[in-house]
């Protein structure tokens, strides 16, 4: 036991109280409410305690399972595309002068557009009749492209849209990471006769580890929780092609007002993302 040198002053807790109250109302109480829903079957004013039934139901539901794997596939593809693309963009951005500022603004532009506006932009852009992109693909290039009817087209459009929206985030993080590499590292490499690829592999990549961890984490979380853009673009269709977890959840909890199932679903969803981020972060921290 260490001796207490200072008298304890518990009045400090009073200052934490306002934050505690507001967090209770904005986060803790709603969460408790969801937990409350998830263990009951509520129908009008009838409520029956059902224990873990909803959780088992959600885990075994084939539609939700399909959504889950669809979402995993989406996140993996997003990461495989956006991380390398972001690195390339970050490496390619000019480091000094007016063009550096121009590049920064242009790269930041997609990040500043609200999610539903992004969805709307691509919904119109991809239309074969009035959209610039859709028109060019179908009429000028002659491909059979229709994101509202072709599952592959819908999937591809969502991927491209998400990449357009979020690859700049990775690029900006990489750009910031590159800026922090001191000049002598590049000088040493040029004196040591290192080629461009070796410079990337041995100087840039090790020093980008930190920002890439953040980028990976942010992009995984966001893509695993993606909702607005595909919802506006395809509404989860055609069929269930782009029916991601969040869209399934919205249909159950808001569409069907199935509070018990929705509650259990939300909690499992939340738990999975939490665990993934926690494990990922621990793993990266041990390696760094």
């Amino acid at each position, binding site marked *: 036991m260490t001796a207490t040198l200072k008298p304890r002053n518990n009045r400090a807790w009073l200052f934490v109280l306002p934050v505690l109250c507001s967090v209770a109302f904005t986060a803790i109480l709603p969460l408790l409410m969801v937990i409350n829903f998830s263990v009951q079957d509520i129908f009008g004013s009838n409520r029956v305690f059902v224990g873990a039934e909803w959780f088992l139901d959600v885990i075994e539901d084939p539609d939700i399972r399909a959504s889950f794997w669809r979402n995993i596939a989406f996140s993996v593809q997003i990461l495989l595309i956006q991380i390398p693309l972001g690195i390339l963009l970050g490496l390619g951005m000019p480091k000094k002068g007016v063009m550096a500022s121009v590049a920064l603004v242009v790269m930041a532009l997609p990040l500043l557009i609200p999610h539903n506006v992004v969805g709307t932009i691509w919904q119109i852009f991809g239309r074969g009749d009035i959209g610039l992109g859709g028109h060019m693909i179908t009429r000028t290039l002659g491909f059979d492209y229709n994101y509202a009817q072709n599952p592959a087209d819908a999937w591809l459009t969502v991927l491209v849209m998400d990449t357009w929206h979020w690859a700049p985030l990775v690029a900006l993080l990489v750009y910031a990471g590159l800026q922090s590499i*001191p000049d*002598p590292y590049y*000088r040493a490499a*040029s*004196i040591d*006769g290192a080629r461009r690829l*070796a410079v990337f592999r*041995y100087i840039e990549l090790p*020093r980008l580890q930190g920002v890439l961890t953040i980028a990976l984490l942010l992009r995984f979380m966001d893509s695993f929780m993606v909702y607005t853009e595909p919802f506006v673009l395809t509404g989860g269709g055609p069929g269930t092609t782009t029916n991601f977890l969040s869209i399934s959840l919205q249909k159950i909890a808001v569409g069907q007002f199935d509070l018990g199932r929705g509650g259990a679903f939300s909690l499992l969803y939340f738990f999975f993302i939490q665990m993934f981020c926690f494990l990922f972060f621990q793993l990266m921290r041990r390696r760094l």
Partner: protein
Amino acid sequence: MAEIVLSHISHRYGEGDQALRNIDLVWENGGAYALLGPSGCGKSTMLDIISGLLAPSEGELRFDGVDVSGMSPADRNIAQVFQFPVLYESMTVEQNLRFPLRNRGIGKIEAQKRAQEISELLEIGHLRRRRAKELSADAKQLVSLGRALVRRDVSAILFDEPLTVIDPQKKWGIRQALKRVHQELNHTLVYVTHDQTEALTFADEVVVMSAGEVVQKATPDVLFERPAHRFVGNFIGSPGMNFLPATVNGSRIAVGGVDLLDVSGCPGVTDADASDLVVGIRPEFVRCHGADGSGRIRASIRRRQDLGTAFQFDLSIDGTRVVAKLPAHPDVSGAECWVDFDSGHLMLFFKDQAVEGVTPLRVPADADSSRGEPGS
């Protein structure tokens, strides 16, 4: 290993000030040189021009007679050690040492052998398997030094203030390693620093720079004894040289009414404007006495300091600050004393340049001086 010749090298960054002004310099093969000067004097620019990281605005650079001005740093085959340790942090020490060889297509066995030799020379053999980023700053700097040495045919090794981030106690070890390396491998070494102790202990010859120009290139002894320029006198030594306004008296130069130097052998000085002339004397060769005597100048004492190994007196002679560094406390009390100089170490500067051929006049006090230094 190569002889490096700079001819008429000038450099200017954009529209800014001239960083280097028309420099002509020869670094001989196998020499250990220090490039010394205050911050912003152009020494780092010079180093970057030699290594090829910077192309000079004007002039020519030759390695062993070959013009290398247009070559890349890798083609020039120079090595450089930077201010702070630059290592490939994801690699082990051994991989770091092999990296420059690997990039030049040298076989693995040969590279391994070479890395082993170098790590033994630098006494970092026990660290070979360790990851570079786990090392302490001084070990890291030794590894960067090793990476510079690992190529056998390197033209020159450039050091850009390599001890800046090293703890004072560890500096000594790295300096020893450097000396050992120079003795064994006989590379041409150029060592940039603003620390005169570092420069003077490391180098066979020191190049002193100021405001983009080379002011003097000489051995440490000569820099101390015979600075060619007021700047060198002031910059080298701690504290720097004293400069006293002089008066011309026929063929004699006097300070404070005492004739000190005979300039009959130096044409042009006798009829020079006295405001262009100063007499220089190092604090080590100023003597203080408690009483007046022949050839002594009266000075007021501003401050006395015990430096531990010596006493430093800050004096004022007719308003000019003069510092005396004395081995023992002189027999002086009160606020004034009488000063004379070790005449063999007096120097004359005309428009900041040292004047050659000056004969010191023997001051009678020299004969019974406690220091016993004869006038030359």
